[in-house]
């Protein structure tokens, strides 16, 4: 049975369209608060793309950390300091051209890299039965249900175990030497967290106001 509308592709295009359009809107708009808001939509659409790829955890993390943390902070700061010069910002056309050149060349490089790997140019090796509708309860459906390639990815479990050192995401690699070299992510995670804390404390310290006491 053919499907004239492919929902997956539709939503992919929708989310990418939103992400790209609002990213461009961030550049184009002259009001700083609206810029922050458009960035929210853009990053939210990126989270949507993550969900579409089946990476629930990463999508949720994007929502929680980027949109719900970083952007809240950004909007907070923007909102508190938005005075009229920032409400209507005007970018001179020379800067537009320069930005277009730099951004455009970066985009070209990224597209070139993204489209080059052979593994990304074709679909997954799914069994043909995956592409047709199957009646529930038939042997074909049972076969489909047992196929390991069609299982929902165990995103959280494998990541969690990987954090702790059990690299079950690389179970196919059985070579003992290579397995011995695999480690968990807990230490780098901790180091990054402490770095973040140091950065925050430093930023708060740097942002303190100093003024002279009048004599």
């Amino acid at each position: 049975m053919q499907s004239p509308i492919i929902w997956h592709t539709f939503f992919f295009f929708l989310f990418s369209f939103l992400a790209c359009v609002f990213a461009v809107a961030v550049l184009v708009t002259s009001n700083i608060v609206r810029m922050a808001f458009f960035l929210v939509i853009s990053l939210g659409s990126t989270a949507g793309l993550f969900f579409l790829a089946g990476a629930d955890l990463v999508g949720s993390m994007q929502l929680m950390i980027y949109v719900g943390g970083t952007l809240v902070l950004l909007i907070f700061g923007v909102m508190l300091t938005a005075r009229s010069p920032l409400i209507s910002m005007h970018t001179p056309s020379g800067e537009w051209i320069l930005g277009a050149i730099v951004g455009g060349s970066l985009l070209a490089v990224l597209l070139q890299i993204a489209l080059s790997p052979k593994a990304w140019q074709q679909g997954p090796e799914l069994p043909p039965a995956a592409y047709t509708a199957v009646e529930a309860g038939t042997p074909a459906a049972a076969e489909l249900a047992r196929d390991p390639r069609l299982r929902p990815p165990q995103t959280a479990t494998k990541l969690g175990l990987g954090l702790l050192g059990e690299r079950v995401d690389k179970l196919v690699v059985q070579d003992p030497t290579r397995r011995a070299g695999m480690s968990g992510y807990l230490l780098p995670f901790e180091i990054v967290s402490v770095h973040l804390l140091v950065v925050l404390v430093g930023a708060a310290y740097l942002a303190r106001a100093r003024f002279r006491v009048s004599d």
Partner: protein
Amino acid sequence: MRAISWLPRSVKAEEPRKNVPRVLVSPGGRVPYFTTSLSAGRKAARSTLGKTTATGIGRPVAEYLQTILPFWLAYLVAALVHATLLIVLSLASGVIFVWGERKVAGRIQDRLGPTRVGGRYGWLQTIADGIKLLTKEDLRPKGADSFLFRIAPYVGWGASYAAFIALPFANGWVAQRMNVAVFFILAVLGLEVFGVILAGYASGSKWSLFGAMREAAQVVSYEVPLGMCVIVPVMIAGTMDLTTIANMQQGWFFNWFVFHDIFTFLLFGVYFTCATAGVNRAPFDLAEAESELVAGFHTEYSGFRWLFFFVAEYGSMFMVSGLAALLFFGGWNGPIPVTAFWPDHPAMNYLANFLGMLNFVFKCTFGVVVMMWVRWTLPRVRIDQVITTCLKYCTPLAAVLFLGATLWTFAFPGGITGMRQVPYGMVREQYKPAEVRAAEDHVAGHPAAESDLAVAGQHRSPR
């Protein structure tokens, strides 16, 4: 690395793909979307531990519709059905809870509340109010940023509504059964603050800005102890999948996680406090503090836009009560397992799930009513005291209780009596090589569990 088929292929012609509609299954390999099973997992409602069967019995809505509709339409209709049900739930819960709040407030304050519209109990009052709000003039302050002013209520409501996607109402009755449902809900609930911030800023009034800033600070601060409180049931269950967490609490009420150990019992109190603060209910409702800021961030909102803020608020209250019910009170599993002794027939399974859903909604409503009760009893806490409560009381308390619960589950994995289900968190077992596992099973003497809980992981080690 699994191939991702939705990246555009190269343009050159290659071997034709033989009538491939390209999507029944998403390339991530997941089961089709919108798999609310009409009778799935009924067996899980039985109280016999570890002997549940897989969820494949029922037919998901989308699969059923595929037999009568064209392919693409089936999924569209399934999606619309789920979306509509959730919208109805979100809006209807807003309507009913507004009426409920007025009645509860009235009774607590020694008066009656609405009694005229729609009979003796005034249950149509909110409908009448909604109609009135629809017909109000569309006001916008002159100093307001009009685009942000108009969009703010919908952003807030959208976040509140989106969280319902992952909330299960009965075994298998969930719009999208996610492996990381808890995390998803927490992430999306944290987005509601955007509606408030934008509303406060875009109103162009200092008072609204004050309210919005206080609210943002409060919600973001309380996400920390809330997350810590939520982690403990997740740890006890070993999974973030809300359906599985609730399934693990089936049976009698002492299976509920709130009675799992004393730390979790106390943690529920901290969770409820943090949840009340996270949805801006009294005593933490400074964002709408009437006596100080008239109405805080939504001072300048009237008519339907204001209604959306309130629907979002009640939706979030329902959501956090739902989380509490699922994580601590067994979700749809009642205090008494009435459905465990029913015959195993699809219609009976459906009825059992339906009763479970009613049970769950009852628990959510009870949580919301408790929040209302607290609102009309206690005075309001000042913003610096709110943040102090969060950082100096809730967070350390949650951390200490988290530590206690961790040590407890480490010391008594099966509970004090040793009869609780072994947590799903022993996932490492599943990744052991087959020979080691078989040897251990032989020694322990019980067969490999074919439980719903294991299959929910749905990943086997290479045998």
